[in-house]
């Protein structure tokens, strides 16, 4: 036996996204629209037996379909990020028109030096004669996370990753990452592995990939997000 006409006529969507859901034999109720990116989930404790909830477990998806090419500017920004507590930023084959440029990652267009703090290990190749140097590195006075420095040859290439946790909160966002830069016949490239935190209080809505001098002229940045 279906829902009676009298019952169904008193249950009608009142707003965009409302669902008419069975609540009992021959009866229905309205389930109002959920939060963006939430999924319909069974829950026997609710009147409708359903609820809207965040997808269970990590659910990584590529936010910028196909990746974003690193060309034509010093700063490449992916904006419009929302409800992503974890972000994974990958750079593949990145290159700058200028040798010696920094590779940096910034959040929310925030250039406040004090919001980028980190400690880590740096590997430097100072010159053709010197041994590769391993040293510690720390930051807190730069307007972005600086992960690597291209060699003084413009053919130097970088690749690496940064993982951020806490992007959907107003608290501290923990970061970990590692980037390398090739010599490409030059010297003074820096490879860094860091752990640290972004201290900005806004939820993450954008990621910028920065070449400190000279436009990006090759490579791709991929931004993955998870609930």
């Amino acid at each position: 036996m279906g829902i009676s006409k009298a019952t169904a006529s008193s249950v009608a969507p009142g707003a965009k996204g409302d669902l008419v859901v069975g609540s009992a034999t021959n009866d229905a109720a309205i389930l109002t629209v959920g939060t963006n990116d939430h999924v319909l989930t069974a829950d026997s404790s609710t009147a409708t037996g359903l609820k809207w909830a965040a997808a269970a477990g990590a659910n990584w998806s590529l936010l910028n379909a196909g990746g974003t090419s690193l060309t034509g500017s010093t700063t490449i920004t992916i904006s419009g990020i929302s409800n992503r507590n974890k972000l994974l930023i990958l750079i593949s084959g990145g290159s700058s028109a200028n040798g010696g440029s920094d590779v940096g990652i910034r959040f929310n267009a925030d250039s406040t030096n004090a919001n980028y703090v980190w400690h880590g290990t740096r590997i430097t190749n100072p010159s053709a004669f010197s041994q590769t140097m391993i040293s510690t590195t720390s930051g807190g006075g730069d307007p972005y996370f600086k992960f690597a420095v291209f060699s003084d040859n413009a053919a130097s290439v970088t690749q690496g990753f940064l993982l951020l946790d806490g992007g959907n909160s107003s608290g501290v966002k923990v970061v970990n990452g590692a980037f390398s830069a090739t010599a490409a016949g030059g010297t003074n490239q820096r490879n860094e592995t860091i752990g640290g935190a972004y201290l900005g209080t806004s939820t993450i809505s954008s990621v910028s990939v920065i070449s400190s001098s000279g436009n990006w002229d090759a490579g791709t940045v991929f931004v993955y997000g998870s609930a």
Partner: protein
Amino acid sequence: MIIEKILDLETNKETIVEREMTAEEMDYFNRIAAEKTAEAQALATKEAARQAVLEKIGLTTDEAKLLLS
């Protein structure tokens, strides 16, 4: 002046903007430029000293690289 390319995931539109550096970016740019100048000068001084030593002991640059490899 900074050229920034922005991909907005909500509209899937890409825009290019030119903007002035923020105070922090300008400060960092000047600081890094000064550091690189100082590093280059230190490197040049070191290189000159290295060449002087090589001449003193009668080695070419390639011979020195071979010994250090």
